[in-house]
């Protein structure tokens, strides 16, 4: 939906600027916002796929692993992938929450605007529903990702204990 919002704001804005051969500040601002939303939307999809890939990597690897070494290799790979994606997950959580607040504000603004300009018209207020829906999704999704992050962070913490044991083994 963020992608759709981005595309629907960016493309008409550019077309208007090209057709009229003039650049209004408001059109420019909306075009930039649309472009930003579009990029964030695409990046979000890619990042989600990358994060879910870790789980797939573990699942597929554990099914194919024939011995203990292969299974540990899958775990090591997944741990390394998570360490690499940890920053991305944090950014996703933050961006999602910020987007949620923005869409919530937009929804409230649309509702108030509809009430002021058109009186109590359900049809006009309904225009705010997509904004509230995106805002809700933007708050719910981080909840699951943060649960995912907690579990993996806990594993990373436990590897520190494992490292202490391994260090002793190396020094023995």
């Amino acid at each position: 939906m963020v992608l759709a919002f981005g595309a629907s704001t960016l493309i008409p804005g550019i077309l208007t600027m090209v057709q009229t051969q003039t650049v209004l500040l408001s059109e420019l601002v909306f075009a930039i916002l649309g472009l930003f939303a579009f990029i964030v939307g695409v990046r979000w999809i890619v990042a989600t796929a990358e994060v879910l890939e870790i789980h797939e990597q573990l699942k597929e690897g554990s099914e194919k692993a024939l011995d203990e070494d292969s299974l540990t290799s899958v775990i090591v790979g997944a741990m390394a992938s998570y360490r690499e994606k940890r920053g991305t997950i944090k950014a996703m959580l933050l961006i999602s929450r910020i987007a949620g607040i923005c869409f919530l504000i937009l929804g409230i603004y649309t509702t108030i605007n509809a009430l002021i300009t058109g009186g109590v018209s359900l049809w006009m207020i309904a225009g705010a529903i997509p904004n509230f829906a995106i805002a809700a999704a933007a708050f719910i999704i981080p909840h699951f990702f943060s649960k995912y992050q907690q579990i993996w962070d806990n594993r990373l913490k436990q590897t520190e204990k494992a490292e202490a044991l391994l260090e002793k083994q190396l020094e023995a």
Partner: protein
Amino acid sequence: MQLKRTHYEIYWEILTYCRTPKSFTSIINRCNLNSKIGQAHLEFLKSRKFLSEVQQGDSTLLKATESAKEYIALFNKTYRELFDESPEFRL
């Protein structure tokens, strides 16, 4: 293999790969290390008697020792426990 591995994970990868004698080049290729870092890790493992040199014809190969087997076993055990103890996203 991947980025962001700890030293312990790299040691484990080297040692499991060297269960049978391996050349320096094959080790750094398999474990995705550059020569300088690979050399440093191998020297460390040799100094701890986890790797020993084996002469095979003209070439010197590296092989994991009995002490390495203990390290590998401990590593496997501790890393498996990470997933046995977590309630979700089990293997």
